[in-house]
């Protein structure tokens, strides 16, 4: 390959800038709202920059974004729900993933087919049946219900990805341990699991993020304000807008930025690993 000439370099940079503009435009639009202290309801005039620069909305949102619920409670709910859901999906799924990665047994192909199918189903597919089932169990409106719902969303994906993580570990490593007299279980915990742990962690992270950023469906299950998660608070503000409520749009903007910022950071740091998991372990390398 030739080295870039100056005009080619300039053209490339111009194209990158154009794409960057496309990427940033909507984010900028949201940030403009978030930092504008003059907004009383929805925006009424076109501006590139906030009219009155202010951090008021951020402070308000970090204090009490939704009704009478504190930010900390929302954050705690979010963390409890998404971490438990991710752990549940991983812990319950890990043995199944290992079995599919290492052993041959009747019905294996059918099982893999089902796994992949359930992994690509949209979360809405599980919504109604889980709603009905959790109602029958009378735990629909608890945080526990949200954990179960998000774990159900994430589990097939986690199993599929843990399976590919286990498969990536050479069989010979395990066989060596086995020959040394270790049992299946011991081999797994001492050899296989540590080697696969990074990939498993990334799969868990994806499951965590599903729970962290999901809210439209979560609202079906929640009735009391103290079981709302952070992401669901956004939806509450949106709904409030649609019903003619007068909360300033700067709240929506600032909450959206607060929720999105840590995720963006995680993605930038872990980009390659996340890509591999999200293509179901088939994106090369």
């Amino acid at each position, binding site marked *: 390959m030739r080295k870039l000439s100056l005009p080619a370099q300039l053209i490339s940079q111009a194209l990158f800038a154009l794409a960057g503009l496309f990427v940033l435009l909507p984010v900028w639009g949201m940030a403009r709202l978030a930092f504008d202290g003059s907004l009383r309801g929805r925006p009424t005039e076109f501006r590139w920059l906030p009219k009155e620069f202010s951090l008021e909305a951020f402070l308000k949102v970090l204090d009490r974004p939704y009704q009478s619920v504190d930010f900390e409670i929302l954050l705690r709910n979010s963390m409890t729900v998404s971490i438990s859901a991710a752990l549940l999906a991983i812990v319950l799924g890990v043995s199944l993933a290992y079995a599919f990665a290492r052993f041959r047994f009747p019905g294996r192909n059918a099982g893999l087919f089902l796994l992949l199918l359930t992994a*690509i189903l949209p979360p809405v597919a599980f919504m109604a049946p889980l709603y009905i089932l959790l109602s029958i169990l009378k735990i629909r409106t608890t945080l526990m219900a949200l954990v179960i719902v998000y774990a159900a969303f994430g589990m097939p994906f986690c199993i599929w990805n843990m399976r590919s993580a286990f498969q990536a570990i050479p069989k010979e490593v395990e066989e060596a341990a086995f020959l040394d007299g270790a049992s299946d279980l011991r081999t797994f915990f001492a050899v296989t699991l540590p080697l696969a742990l990074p990939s498993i962690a990334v799969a868990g992270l994806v499951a965590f993020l599903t729970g962290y950023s999901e809210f439209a469906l979560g609202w079906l299950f929640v009735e009391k304000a103290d079981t709302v998660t952070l992401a669901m608070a956004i939806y509450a503000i949106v709904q409030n807008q649609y019903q003619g409520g007068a909360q300033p749009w700067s709240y929506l903007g600032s909450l959206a930025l607060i*929720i999105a910022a840590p995720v963006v950071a995680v993605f930038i740091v872990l980009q390659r690993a996340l890509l591999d998991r999200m293509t179901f372990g*088939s994106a090369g390398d």
Partner: protein
Amino acid sequence: MNQFLSSPFLRRAGYLLAVLLVILLGWNLRLNAATYLPVDYDEDDYLRAAQEYAAVIRSGDMSGLMDYNYRTEHPPLLKILYGWAIAGDPEVRLIPDRPTTAQPDATLPRPHLIHARTLGAVIGTLVVGIVALINPLAGFALSIHTFNIKYVSQVMLESLPSLTSLLMVLAYLRSKKSPRPAAWLAISAVFLGLTAASKYLYCVIGIAILVDWFLENRKTGKLLNWLTSVLPWGLLSIAIFFAANPYLWPDPINRLSESVFYHAGYASGAEEVQRAGYPFYQSLVHMFFSPYWWWQNGVFAFPYDPFLAIFAILGLKGLWKKERLYVLWMIVALAFLFVWPTKWAQYNIILSVPLALSTAEGFMALIVNPLKAWWVNRKDKAVLAAPQKNDLRRAWPWLVPGLIAFIILTLFPLTFQFGVSLTDFSAASIRDGLQGGLWRAISGGLSGQAPASIPTEFPYRASEVNYIGPINFIPALGYLTLPERDVLVFNVIWMVSSVLMQSALGLGLALLLRQRGVRLRKFWQALFIVPWAIPEMIGALMWWNIFQPNWGWLALAAQQFGENIPFGFFVGWERSTDLRMLIFLIPGLWYGFPFMLMAASAGLKMIPDEVYDAAAIDGANQWQTFLRVTWPLLLPLLLPAIIVRGIFAFNQFYLFQAFYALEATLSTLSYNVFNSGGFHPYGGQFAISSVINVLNILILIGFVILFNRWSKAGQGVTYA
């Protein structure tokens, strides 16, 4: 015995029997439709035209044919035939002249209406018969095609031109193999002329012939030959057109231009065309739709059309191998209908024949051939299947705990969903349902103890859950394919176009970033990942903040600076179906391209530099290098990512939820699982939502099969 079964005589007899049965079936369905279909738009117009011609025919002075052509925008040939069909009927008052916007006229005189319709049914059956002679299975598909039955069996202008255009194509095809091509070409030109004299639209099929003809001549390198033979072909057809169009004889130029230019004005100006607000791909929507089959006085028992269309799409490749002209016919006709602003349902009849032929190919490729192969191979397979290694004894302790969780959390809810889709569970019966009524209904229904029943007077109002059986699937499919809602076709078009755009932008940027010595590479890469990281609903809200019709950024800018700002043409997008599609595609592109960018970057890294060096030594320029080297090596690596993106796009939910909030006309299946309230006037949301959900899952099963097949090709995911 086997020898006897495969004897040519028996094959021939079986073939003729099949053709005969298909013709009988087609005739039966069309006659039935002609007799019982309710009166539709336009039938009064053409029946009035027929009345005028009938009077001329009765008078015996045929020169009167030159004076009449009611609704001059359409040529008179079929109207004259309708006049001949009703000439023997008692004379009645002339049907009043009404605007094109008027509602269907239910008081049309009988038996005139029925006689004219029966003529259409006869011609429509002739088409079925000819198609059945080409391929009995295709004839069968055409004979049951709801769309075709409806529009050839009404007093419309579809039956005769579909016959003449088919004969034109067949004569042309014959000319390619015949020792005397000129004679067959002349026949085909005659039929082109007759087609033009029946309805202009069908001449589009002539363009497909020209394309095929051109390709044929390019292969042999005789392009000049093409021009010299096309010219007389066209002239002959024009002559026939005039000969078959007596209305033009007295004043050809003016009357012809008046007739032809009407359509341009109608397409751009008529109120009903504007009001319909169809997207450019409306003909595809119609292809997957059985025209309101439940309203048609019980003429149609079942909406076959969506199923036929699915087989047709899968059969196109096979049909191209057999006879590319039919596929060209389909492509040219679709392209024309995409571009032409008027998009009435009956225009789709120009596609009927290639659709039926392709359906037959798809059915063979998808159902018959695999079954045949399985039947032939079943013995070999049993012998070949080596005793598989079986670790079940070691595997089961690992399987059990995870399997229990997977069954409880994932499989059971889905299976339960299938159960709910067979009940009338709704808001009214929610109490009973949650207290065990659902179990009672599902288990009772599936074990056959409770008969399927639905109260006809107040469906979905019962306070107890009832087993109703799979009766909602076909209406739900009808709802999803309704032209006003257009969920299924939109969903597929949305998926394909958004993935294409995402892949193009992602791959383009990946190639640019890969150039040697590019500055700021890390910075740009990090920036481009941002949309991928932003949770989908938040991204959707960000775009909503720009495009909201009243107070979005764009709308506010347009209010302040007028509509001539950059991107000002987007203002008012919510009123235009095509713009709405575009407005959804922009956030779709924004979400999706980073993923494709990263997948492409990862793929590009795996292509060794030596390959490029070799290409450079061979003197390939950049474009050639990409086309011949990079792309073929990259595609298999990219396919899994493309499919994953496709599935994401197919399932896209939050974007539509954010943009619509309450009601939707263009949206994905997922959105309709969540918001199924619009479906049934009586409620019954749970039942309907679960039906749509089950349909969605069935479609996604297709995707999994594709995913597995394609990524195996790319050495990615395999079951092994």
